[in-house]
């Protein structure tokens, strides 16, 4: 094996990405999904948890029109790639009313679960790595 950099040899890990960025900082909204896709493709069990302004990405109509860079791919498509790779998406219910997300019907279908802060606490405690964007 000449070039070890080309070969993957990691252990399986549980990774939690806490997504607090939202539409006010679009340039921060693509990379977490991109990274999540790679980690999932490398056998990690990846969850992305939307809280604070991040919950707005889970609101219908927001991520469909949002791009991180001019001319770039839509954030919803980055989310689809992540889900395709096996990433689970959670939205934080206590953060929703403050961002005028009043009903579960306002949330995009891509979200696997709408959950409370206790689940976030569990995910943090169970994760091998926690990353916040």
């Amino acid at each position: 094996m000449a070039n070890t950099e080309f070969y993957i040899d990691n252990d399986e890990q549980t990774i939690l990405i806490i997504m607090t960025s939202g539409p006010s900082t679009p340039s921060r909204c693509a990379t977490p999904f991109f990274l999540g896709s790679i980690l999932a493709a490398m056998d990690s069990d990846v969850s992305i948890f939307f809280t604070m302004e991040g919950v707005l990405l889970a609101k219908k109509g927001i991520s469909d029109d949002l791009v991180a860079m001019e001319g770039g791919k839509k954030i919803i498509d980055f989310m689809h790639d992540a889900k395709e790779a096996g990433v689970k998406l959670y939205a934080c219910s206590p953060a929703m009313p403050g961002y005028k997300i009043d009903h579960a019907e306002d949330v995009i279908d891509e979200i696997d679960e709408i959950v409370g802060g206790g689940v976030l606490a569990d995910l943090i405690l169970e994760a091998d790595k926690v990353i916040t964007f």
Partner: protein
Amino acid sequence: MTECNGCEFKPELYYDDEFQIWVSKEEDGKLKVGMTDLSQSIAGKIMHVRVRKPGTKRAVGRPVATVESAKWAGPIPNFINCVIDTGNEKVLENPKLLNIDPYGAWIAVVTPELPVEEALAVFLTGEEARKGYCQRAYDDDIQCERLSL
């Protein structure tokens, strides 16, 4: 050449039911794995490919490799229990080859746990595969594009 929406199809290869990867039989009971024209077009210019370390066992659902372009990252999915034999170092060093010649630029060779014919039973091939491949190109409106050398 058989194609749909400019996406090349090779009837002699084996495909998963979403036509993400192709598989071909090698003479020594091994299988070569690569990306389809559909997949390389969706990914765009590929910048990095990494293969699981040779010798590692991969169960169904455990990716063989990871692929990154500027706008897409994801797995080369795996549909059979197998052991990674080798990665294609030409492709690992120059991932753009996947965009230039997706059916020539294989990514990895694997040894299936089952005899080859049994392992290949989970894949589609020939006319059945062509129909599904074209359907996906049309349904998802995928127009294939190749990079030139």
